[in-house]
């Protein structure tokens, strides 16, 4: 049953990674302008 130890650790690392990623995206303001992002995708970038 020692496999359970690895599995527990793996699930925690993966879940923790997801949490860290979400908190990071929150802090960098990715949820500030949901309307803008939905529209922005329709236009090409102006970087030639």
């Amino acid at each position: 049953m020692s496999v359970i130890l690895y599995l527990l650790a793996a699930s925690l690392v993966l879940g923790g990674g997801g949490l860290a990623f979400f908190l990071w995206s929150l802090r960098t303001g990715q949820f500030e302008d949901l309307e803008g992002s939905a529209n922005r995708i329709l236009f090409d970038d102006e970087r030639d």
Partner: protein
Amino acid sequence: MTAPQATRAETVCTHCGQPAAAGQRFCCPGCHAAFDTIQSMGLGRYYRQRLLDAGSRAPRPEAGGHQELERYIVTGPDDRHTLSLAVDGLQCGACVWLIESVLAREANVVAGRVNMTSRQLRLTWTGPVGDAPRLVDAIERLGYRLVPFDASCLAAAQDATGRTLIRALAVAGFAAGNVMLISIGLWAGEAAGWLTGMGPATRDLLHWVSGLIALPAIVYAGRPFFRSAVGALRHGRTNMDVPISVGVLLVSGMSLSETFAHAQHTYFDSAITLLFFLLIGRVLDHRARGQARATAEQLLTLRAADVTVLRPDGTTERRAQQAVAQGDRVLVGMGERIGADGIVEQGSAPLDTSLVTGESLPTDAAPGSVVFAGTLNLGAPLIVRATATGELTLLADCVRLIEAAEARRSRFVVLADRVARLYAPAVHAAALTTFLWWHLVRSVPLEQALLTACAVLIVTCPCALALAVPAVQVIATSRLLRLGILLKSGTALERLAKVDTVVFDKTGTLTEPSLALMRDGIAPEDLRAAASLAAHSRHPLARALLAAAGPVVAADAAMEIPGQGLRSGDTRLGSRAFCDVRSGTAAEGPELWFARPGRVAIRFVFTEHLRPDAAETVTRLRALGLSVVLLSGDTQHAVGPIAQAVGIDEWHARCSPLEKAERIETLASAGKKVLMVGDGLNDSPSLSAAYVSASPASAADVSQTVADLVFQGANLAPVAIAIGAARRAHGVMRGNLALAIGYNVLMVPLAVIGWVTPWVAAAAMSTSSLLVMANSFRARRT
């Protein structure tokens, strides 16, 4: 009427989409220049991809005075300057693209990003600070209006709570997911117990891991609840957060001691899942009440402009509104808002007081007249000696009035809180009884009895209850917002549902906000000739005349004599005296005279127009079982026909603002729940006296701030729509509460007799929450 409209549709300005003179591609040189600029930059795609939004300001460039930008520029350590600006005139995604593309062409701009949700532009550049006006000008020349603001005070106040809640939600979600995963292993081990079984060592390990994940998460994610519960208890009250906090803490503590004792059941999963569901409700609730009000307040903040103070030595100085002292002499240029209450010392000009009084016609100010902060100078420069500033101005008074209205409103007990008041004691009594019964009557060991009592607390914990109201609020509010109805207070929906009397104001509410020209007997060519003069003025009557005439070419060399009229050579447009008319009697309503040499002077009379669907809306409100009343400050003569036209039997004319408020108080004391619909500052007292209040978006800013609900557009129908939607939402809320309580009634007996194991609690809790969420979506339909 139809013919000119048809031609108008054909000749719209290529840039801004507003009517243009026949045969012209552009309505004004500004639009032409903007079009050329965009084409020369190779951004012509903008015109193909955009969708003009009739509801927002057309992108027509306006020549405006330069604003003070320096105060708002923040310079970072690496010599980057940042400026935050509110953007007026954003139509769709293409506008965002256009602004960002134009800024990207500027070599020294590091970043120029538009937030479409909050309509703000954040501009970062390197090089001289003095570059700001040039960059802002480049955008303004395209037709957008930019207003700088202090990002630090807005953003900070905006959403610290919201962010805390979402972070707590994320942590709780992470922990709940992982603990639940482990719990499934535990339940499976228990269910398979009579086959192979899970060894006690493995079970203990899993309990320990659950506890190590859940406990820190509970401490972190539970803070919003604990804080609110402590606050309530300190004031000797109880709210929904008290049973939540007690339940969560007791269950976690109990589970920890069970883990130490190598026991079979722990409830870490229930405790953390509970917090997760409750936090969803909290986040939704925060959204519902926060956003709309923040927008309104932000707009008011933006209107607060700088003030030019005249120093004793004759030089001028720009100061923030708060920095103006009593006795300062303030210079107010044409088209500028007065920054302080005061007395005019020098100059005379018509003032647009609509922000303060909601009155559409300007009033004249001359030396000695008292003027108020927030009024707009339409004529020549004035020098005003400030008598009251900042906190003491009439505008600030209104803000205080608003605060008083808010305080009055907060006394309204929300449905959910009323339930909570009964709920909390009932839950605690049930848990205590369970504990005492098992321990004393049935003589089970202390721990066993405590565990059963905990199970009662868990199944009664109000997650479905906490979702019941906010979920409906968010769904109904966002649906109304899409229809142009802005609900500003969290409880407006509930109060709106209970309304049984609607009181309307007349001017600007039942009637359209702007005046309309009475066309009878006026030749179209005369109208056009007069309108070409009127094009030079911002006076409301001139604008009404211009609107009636359609697109015209502005007359040459016209000059405005403030408070009197316009002249171009010997042609005059203005008051009776200005045009030297001596015959005839004055008209009922406001009038304008048009005099040309060698011809008989022509009179233009203006009148109020009913909103197109006023009568229909009144009928609809009646059909909803509401009684409709009209209260107006106007004369009997003016109010009677209007009341008859829309079908209101009960109307009162010549009501002063105080009388209106008194009448509403009388209705309220007779047990009526009054919805007041009004638009001017003179309506503000009655708006705040009413049970719930509404204002059209054209109303004075102060009224909009006092009102619970602001509706856009020329129609009155939103009032009826909002009431209908509110009633429906209220029905769904009650349904949700019934569902949540029904679930508790079902589960509590099971918990009391000790049948609720951790997995039963988890399953029951999730199903009831999901059920309530699903039911809430019914509020989306009308």
